[in-house]
């Protein structure tokens, strides 16, 4: 199975399934269905889990005769990965996102510290 690099873009149902796996740990397809609203078809969720596996988000382990699915990264790692991508996108200026500050140079850092020292001295 080929795995897509980086944090993949997830569809709405894929995101729902990931949140269920993050909240409840290793689950079978039927258990995932029980947590989902409505009554999605078994094949739909099995396909979603297969896609998530291809995207590097989910791994499948055999538990006796049943297959259980679990998240490959936790929610925090996923969020951090998304933020890395978002921050790179904004630096690339392909989207209109404005940062409070990117990274400051050593010279600018010196200036800021010097300013703070001056202000402290005035007090």
């Amino acid at each position, binding site marked *: 199975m080929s795995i897509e690099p980086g944090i993949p873009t997830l569809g709405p149902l894929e995101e729902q399934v990931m949140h269920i796996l993050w909240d409840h740990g290793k689950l079978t397809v039927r258990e995932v269905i029980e947590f989902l609203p409505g009554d999605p078809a078994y094949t739909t969720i099995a396909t979603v889990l297969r896609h998530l596996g291809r995207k590097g988000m989910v791994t499948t382990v055999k538990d006796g005769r049943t297959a259980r699915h679990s998240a490959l990264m936790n*929610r925090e790692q996923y969020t*951090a990965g998304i933020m890395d991508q978002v921050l790179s996108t904004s630096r690339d200026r392909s989207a*209109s996102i*404005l940062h409070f500050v*990117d990274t400051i140079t050593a010279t600018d850092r010196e*200036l800021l510290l010097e*300013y703070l020292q001056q*202000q402290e001295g005035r007090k």
Partner: protein
Amino acid sequence: MTAASALTVALIIGISLAVIGIFGPALLRHAAPALAKTPHLAVALLIGGILVWPTTLLALSLALAWVLVGPALLPQKAALVCEQCLTAANPFSVESIQTTLPTVLLLVIPTVIAAMCTVGIAAQFMARVRCSRSTAARVQHEAYRRPLLGYNVSVVHDHRPWALTFSPRLGGITLSSGAIDQLADDELEAVLAHEQAHMDQRHHIVTALVDSIAAQLRWVPFIREAAEVLPDYLEIAADQQACRKVNTTALVRALLVLGEKKIPTGTIGSAAGTLFAAGPGRIPHLVGSSTGRKGYVPALAAGSQILLLGFVSVIVLLSYAIALLTGCSLP
């Protein structure tokens, strides 16, 4: 007006255009200390310059069609209509010069190029809007809304301290839980006031528009440079508004906390690091280390040149617009 003097005027405008186009970056660099003191004026000058430069190029070509007369390419009836429109659009009484260049080319070629550029800019703008929307949707999905020091913000669970702003429609001010944990209340207020200034001053639309235009016209050094330094002036403008609400010291401390390199920059980040090298320098300006009266002459020169070119463009394009709207009727 004689043909020779009309051509001289056109030549002067052409030279002005070339000077601004080629030497504009140097002018902007020298003007930076003065422009940083009035960031709103600087933003207006940069946006004005980016819009005026290509418009003047179009206007110059259309104005030359009033002076240069060449062999007719169009069928006789169409050529007569075209000639009547040219005469109706011409607000000056100018002698014409016979050339081998068909007059219609002076009208059609720049108009077609301008139309293609406009379509390209619109496509680029829409692509940016789509990218902003999908990026914001991904972030907002991981975020929760909460009131914070009188602002309604989105918070993402991330231990690293960062803060950014989407346009108000896409979620507005967004910051990490790490930023909330690591910043004191007055520092947080400084960050929020700065981000709110971006939204109040519609900086998202400004950057989207300018970057879309610059993407089509990057071959013009002035436009490339203006688009690259614009974000610095937007930051200075936001800092200026924030400093009216909060203490500058709080803003400085917040910059030190959030400016620490905690997020991998990758190749794009390192490119961006050098991107603003020619800019006015947000930090020196904020802490008041860039003082003096330097940069006023280049700023005045750039401003007056852009105003002059803008004035020429308005006269030429308005004349054509009026002629077309009145059905090319002769007075």
